[in-house]
């Protein structure tokens, strides 16, 4: 069974360093620059009508899938390049990783005005909106992929690295024979996660209003949102069925075959049990089309790339690769100056927000944090027992696992309107309902990891526990909890990130023509976006980034270290 390893937090030295500050300022200035650009966007935009006829769905689904694919290709390319740079750089730990850390805690809706408005400011409207949607999906797909690739690159065993060096595997050859194979399984699992993340924010990415501008793109996400907005439950149901069908289809036709194929990249030197199997992969392997694709297209391409990398190597061998000290200082000076200028402007912009506006931000932050904690606790409460139950019973796991995986990849955002309909009438209204909505965005991570953890408990320990006649409680205390701890921490880190991000869509819901919202940081960000009140959006976003990163550093990393050191089953 594949253990879902999300990013591993970098080695914790100090909770916060100078590099972190620089990174934070860089991101703040970038967001600010986007917001400034946004002022130049057209003042009034009316998007195309979204048809709610089920007949439109196949076309919409196709468009959305294309958008997801484009964003995914972009994410993959970004990840490969960024991860490569980070793995080679001396500044990885002080700059590249913290930057990713901050980027992944920027709430997606805060990218929205930056992306859309900035892009429509200088591109034709239709193209700008299309690119913006792809960019937004990208922001929900890229980061975990990048972390996975970086982690793989730096954990390649020394011996394999030395063998590659001595046998002169470089550039394409090294990528093809060492780095990609080594990272393959991690990359595939994280790609699946990325797609799930993309679906989750599809609705937000395809349709949104910013002030008087109504941006929409024909697609499955906008179909669902329109249906929810009009309260058309029949259309909503059609949309959901299409979405689920699409997800199952992709799982069966893309991800399962990929996983089955990737079995060969397992690093173990012993034959392992529990291989992933895929009917489609078997069909493909036997097909003429597939083998001719390999012979005619991929094989020659491989040869071409190989020849190219060898030629390049011959050239590269002589070139010196030292940049002069002067160049370095000049470059640093220019970048530093630009950063300082940007920070000054951003600060002025931030100060234009009246002081009284900060109070709701802090109140909202507190409220959202409580909800995140509550959502995590509730998740843990049901997922740990269920995870252990499933994980300890291999037969149950073999069929529950795929079901859970599909359930997890159904974007909860599509279900929100339905859930909200049922929940707002409960005492507490959206205030509590939002917790449940955030739950849908976070619980799966913990469940997956709990199952993986329970399955990793060695058989001899289970026997020993039974032989000693431990009571149920003792068994939990002595065996299950300690064994599960590292997995739970890993799951909780991702779940907490997911919950924060989900707060934006959970605390501010539009359904049946009315808008429901509650006190929370997410609601403030969503509201500020819709009204086009940028200073508030900027301030709330920075607050959320600061909070999420601080919690990561101060809480999760420490727990992670404890898990690594004390509770590792070797």
């Amino acid at each position, binding site marked *: 069974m594949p253990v879902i390893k999300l990013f591993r937090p970098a080695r914790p030295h100090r909770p916060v360093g100078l590099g972190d500050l620089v990174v934070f300022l860089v991101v703040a200035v970038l967001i600010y620059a986007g917001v400034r650009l946004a002022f130049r966007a057209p003042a009034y935009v009316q998007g195309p009508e979204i048809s709610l006829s089920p007949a439109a769905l196949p076309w919409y689904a196709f468009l959305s899938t294309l958008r997801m694919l484009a964003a995914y290709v972009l994410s993959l390319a970004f990840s490969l390049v960024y991860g490569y740079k980070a793995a080679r750089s001396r500044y990885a730990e002080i700059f590249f990783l913290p930057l990713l850390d901050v980027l992944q805690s920027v709430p997606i809706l805060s990218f929205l005005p930056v992306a859309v408005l900035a892009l429509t400011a200088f591109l034709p409207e239709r193209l700008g909106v299309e690119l913006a949607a792809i960019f937004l999906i990208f922001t929900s797909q890229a980061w975990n992929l990048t972390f996975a690739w970086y982690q793989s690159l730096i954990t390649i065993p020394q011996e394999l690295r030395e063998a590659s060096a001595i046998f002169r595997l470089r550039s394409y050859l090294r990528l093809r024979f060492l780095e990609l194979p080594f990272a393959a399984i991690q990359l595939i699992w994280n790609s699946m996660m990325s797609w799930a993340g993309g679906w989750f924010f599809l609705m937000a990415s395809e349709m949104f209003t910013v002030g008087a501008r109504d941006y929409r793109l024909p697609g499955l996400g906008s179909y669902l949102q329109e249906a929810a907005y009009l309260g058309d439950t029949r259309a909503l149901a059609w949309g959901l069925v299409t979405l689920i069908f699409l997800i199952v289809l992709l799982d069966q036709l893309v991800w399962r075959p990929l996983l089955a194929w990737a079995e060969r990249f397992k690093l173990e*030197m012993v034959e392992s049990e529990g291989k992933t199997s895929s009917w489609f992969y078997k069909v493909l392997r036997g097909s003429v089309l597939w083998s001719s694709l390999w012979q005619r297209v991929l094989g020659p391409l491989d040869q071409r790339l190989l020849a190219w990398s060898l030629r390049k190597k011959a050239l590269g061998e002589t070139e010196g690769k030292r940049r002069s000290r002067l160049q370095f200082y000049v470059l640093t000076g220019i970048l530093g100056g630009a950063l300082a200028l940007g920070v000054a402007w951003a600060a002025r912009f931030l100060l234009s927000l009246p002081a009284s506006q900060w109070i709701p931000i802090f109140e909202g932050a507190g409220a959202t944090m409580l909800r995140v904690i509550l959502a995590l606790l509730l998740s843990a409460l049901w997922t740990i027992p269920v995870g252990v139950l499933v994980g300890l019973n291999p037969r149950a796991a073999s069929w529950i696992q795929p079901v859970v995986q599909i359930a997890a990849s159904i974007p909860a955002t599509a279900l929100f309107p339905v859930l909200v309909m049922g929940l707002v009438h409960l005492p507490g209204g959206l205030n509590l309902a939002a917790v449940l909505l955030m739950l849908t965005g976070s619980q799966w991570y913990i469940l997956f990891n709990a199952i993986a953890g329970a399955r990793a408990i060695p058989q001899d320990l289970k026997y020993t526990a039974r032989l000693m006649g431990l009571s149920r409680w003792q068994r939990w205390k002595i065996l299950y909890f300690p064994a599960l701890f590292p997995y739970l921490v890993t799951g909780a880190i991702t779940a907490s990130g997911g919950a924060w991000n989900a707060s934006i869509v959970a605390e501010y819901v539009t359904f049946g023509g009315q808008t429901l919202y509650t006190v929370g940081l997410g609601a403030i960000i969503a509201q500020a976006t819709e009204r086009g009140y940028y200073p508030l959006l900027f301030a709330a976003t920075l607050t959320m980034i600061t909070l999420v990163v601080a919690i990561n550093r101060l809480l999760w990393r420490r727990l992670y270290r404890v898990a690594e050191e004390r509770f590792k089953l070797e």
Partner: protein
Amino acid sequence: MAEHLLELRNVSQVYRSGDREFLALKDVSLTLDEGEFLVLLGPSGCGKSTLLRIATGLQRPTSGEVLYRGEPLKGVNPKATIVFQTFALFPWLTVLENVEVALAARGVPPEERRRRALEILDRVGLDGFEGAYPRELSGGMRQKVGFARAMVVEPELLCLDEPFSALDVLSAAALRGELLELWLSGKIPTKAILMVTHNIEEAVLLGDRIVVMEKNPGRIVTEVRVSLPHPRNANDPSFRALVDEVYAMLAGETQPEAVELGSAPGEPGKLRALPNISVASMAGLLEALAATPGGRQDLYKLADELGVDSDHLLRTVEALELLGFVTVAKGDVALTPLGETFAEAGILARKEIFAARLRRLPIFRWLLELLEAAEGRRLRGEVVRRALELEFPPPEAEKQFQVIVNWGRYAELFAYDDSTGVLYLEPVPTSA
């Protein structure tokens, strides 16, 4: 005079940790000529593997020069390949692909790649396994793939990094024989072989010349020329004599106590590194010696009898020497009266003897004084680690800490709580 194939001139390697510097290799010079099989022999931690990496250009030395055919080496030497201790095969490639990839990287066209790879696999006796994945093979066969991959590109210099030490005894013996056959028959275009090992018999069996290294700091102590004709017979008296001689070089002689023990942290003089050896190994060796008439034995015979490799044996002997249980002279190890007592004692008595001996070691004396003076007679392990890090590079310091804890726990000198990382003195038991 013809130029050497490989020459290392005054190579030193320094590792920095914080503002401390540790000398891993000190002023090493050596030469390797065409037709030679040179062995670097030394205990673990003497830097011989580092030296191999420097010789192939995988690593750049802190100072000193590496010349290949008289030219300074820039980057990885294209004329050299390595057979790795852990095989270092790509698990996702088949046997054939593992070999082919080495050729692909040198721009050999596909058809020729296949032909040459199949040919070399045939020569090392792997035909029929071309399509197998490394995980389907035994250790010995995996290493054959390692040899095939290293030889297929026809390197002038073949480097072997303890290639047999991860194999079982029989596979290792078989593979050694096959390597010698290939090398001596001249069927491979290899001009010279450079092998790293800590196994004395292996070195004498294969090498034309043995460079003996020592650790702390890593350096060359002497060179032995082996002129025995091939095939060499391990039971031949002249072979045994040579093995005995090399053992004597590596084991050294028992020194006066002050020299053996070294000094405590913070005192002038060098802190003695404790060999990373379990108490069980020490007890086993003492028992074996006690069973030998006269309590005295040749080291190489002892290695044969006990079936342990020479490196492990030498480190165990070093530990026993340090504790005063044995003395070493001229490649012989002899039980002291104290060692004899220990071998005959029961569990508790052994602990007492061991404790008494440990108290004499400066590092333990220092630690116990510190513990006595500490509040609540407890001390964070960090304190000890930091003191050790002033003397040893970080990974070695950690190892030393573990050895101290293991020995001290056995002797019941102190206790250590792993979860809190605290060392403490157990309360003195009130007489029952």
